[in-house]
């Protein structure tokens, strides 16, 4: 059950945009779809939504072939857009009705979500009077109003201030608890790391990395040490032939080749009576892995 994407391909003329990607979502949660600009994320999303025909492969939802007619997924596109001169309540009701809801229940749902996302005061206003962040929250409501089982969020946090980002994160956590399947596409790796257990990285239409995020990270050796000390330790680092990545007010980010380098540094700091407040041997972040995989 859930979503199955199998060997999906799509070309425009001679250009292959999506080249045989496959993944599965067998249980509710957040799946990270990553890639550089033009990697084929939006094309993949459009094929999952059934609005773009794939050249080959299979996309099934709960065992049924995904087609425009039989899917009712939620979608927050990367390209934000709402009717500028129409009242928010009217356009949300319009989208809810197109998704099969009746006007009464639709308006109740709109009020519920508006309260949750703190936009109740704007429902009677036209969209052009709203800030970008609030417009984005309205569009988010439009994508989840009809309570879809699968929700695709393309860059959900871009343009949001920290308060609203937190608000939206809580809503996403809530949706996962309710048993929703969420595909999240984002360039904000910290958000992906925060939410996703499974990820897929696309580059030029091809899958370059795929799997459980913890498993992926565990395969990578430690590459950095984060140290907070009471004095300058530049000489110690130099003597051990290590490279400083970042240094600010005795807070060091040091590049290492293996965990062994870390142990050597720790021993040396101890020998020289340096007071250590923090010492962490770090595995590569998703950001590091992403750059390694798709960076030219």
């Amino acid at each position: 059950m859930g979503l199955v994407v199998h060997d999906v391909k799509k070309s425009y003329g001679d250009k292959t945009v999506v080249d045989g990607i496959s993944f599965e979502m067998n249980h509710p949660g957040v799946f990270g779809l990553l890639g550089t600009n033009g990697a084929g994320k939006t094309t993949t999303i459009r094929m999952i939504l059934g609005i773009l025909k794939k050249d080959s492969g299979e996309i099934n939802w709960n065992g049924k072939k995904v087609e425009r007619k039989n899917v009712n997924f939620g979608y927050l596109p990367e390209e934000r857009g709402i009717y500028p001169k129409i009242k928010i309540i009217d356009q949300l009701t319009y989208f809810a009705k197109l998704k099969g809801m009746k006007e009464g229940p639709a308006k109740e749902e709109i009020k519920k979500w508006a309260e949750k996302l703190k936009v109740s005061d704007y429902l009677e206003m036209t969209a052009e009077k709203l800030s970008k962040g609030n417009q984005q929250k309205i569009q988010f409501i439009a994508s989840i109003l009809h309570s879809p089982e699968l929700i695709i969020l393309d860059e959900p946090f871009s343009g949001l201030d920290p308060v609203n980002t937190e608000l939206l994160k809580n809503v996403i956590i809530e949706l996962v608890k309710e048993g929703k399947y969420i595909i999240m596409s984002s360039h904000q790796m910290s958000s992906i790391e925060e939410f996703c257990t499974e990820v897929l990285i696309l580059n030029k239409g091809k899958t370059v990395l795929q799997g459980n995020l913890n498993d992926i990270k565990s395969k990578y050796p430690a590459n950095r040490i984060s140290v907070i000390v009471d004095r300058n330790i530049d000489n110690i680092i130099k003597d051990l032939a290590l490279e400083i990545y970042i240094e600010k007010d005795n807070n060091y980010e040091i590049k290492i080749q293996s965990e062994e380098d870390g142990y050597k540094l720790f021993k040396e700091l101890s020998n020289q009576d340096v007071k250590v407040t923090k010492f962490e041997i770090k595995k590569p972040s998703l950001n590091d892995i992403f750059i390694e995989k798709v960076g030219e």
Partner: protein
Amino acid sequence: MRDLLTVAFFTIKDMVKRKSFIISNIIIILIIVLLFNIPNILKLLDNGEGTSSNDKLLLVDSENIFEGNLEVIKQMDLGYEVEISNEEVSFDEIKEKITNGEIDDALILNSNNGKISMEYIVENLMYVEEVPETLVNAISSIYTNMQIAKLNLTEEELKSMSPEFEFSLKQTEEEKVEGNVAVMMLLSMALFFAIYYCAYQVSTSITVEKTSKIIETLVTSTSPRSIVLGKTIGIGLVGLIQIAVYLIVALICKEVFLEPGVIDSIINFNNVTPFLIGMTLLYFLLGYAAYALLYALTGSTVSKPEDVQSANGPVAILVIIGFYLAYFTMMNPTSNLNIIASILPISSPFCMPLRIMMGIAETKDIILSIGVLLLTIIIVAKVSIRIYSNAILNYGSKIGLKDIVRMYKNKNG
């Protein structure tokens, strides 16, 4: 079907709530009211000057050539309020009277070696080239009657001099054309503007949704078919309601502001049958649908608002060709070219209602014309929806004819 109606009603609600829509309709209604009040306004202006609508003419017969018979002219409906003087009036005196507004013009009659001279004096000769023909004819007639009376002819002799003529008109062509050509042209133009304006709205609406990226959400909520047809139906209904409102306003204005018979002298209301009204509305809707669906196609290919004009250009040219084909062949409504124009789908909406109004449209031609138009609408709808499905999410470079052909071949959506 439910989505189609949802899109249609949303489109209607959006259109009628727009300030530009409300203001433009108020202006059009005011223009209609104003047009129907032109006779009243002219009357009001005349009354304001304290004069009647007729010119005040001073007729000077100082030599009494007409022996008092000129009084008859006052009973004639010549458009003049005539004042007759048998005293000599100088040019300066006439000038003063014209300047004071006592008279508008003067006609001085003098005999000259057996001839009668007429000197016509007005304030400015800019729009006057000769002594008004009506005055010349009336005065000549009075003079002739005066001279005939002097011959003491019998009643029979008099009757034989002025026989009662009977007039009739006939044409060599078999088809009988009824109606006022100017009114026909006006109706043709009204249909052209109504169809063009409403159809263009479809393109604008689609382009706005695409360029503002609303389409991303919309296209995942319903099918392209529902969006295109829903919009076309919505805007068409608004157009129909607008026409109905204008007609009702016009009819109320006719009853309230116009003197009875003014419109009847221009339009023969016997020709305005329920069949004609029904057919005119049907042709408006069908013509609108054909062009609106074409505009939906071009509207979906636009990525930037500034490209709207150039993308819609080919459809605009097609509408104009269709209109002129109908308009110019209407000069000779019995010609074969006009029959062709009434059947061709690009021109039939502007042409056939007029042929029906003139009473020269044959039933088989009407059926053929509607059939061709319906077939065109179905084909255009299919092509437009398919291209819309492929073009609407394409924000790249400008879409050309080649891309449109490629998109039509791609059976996406």
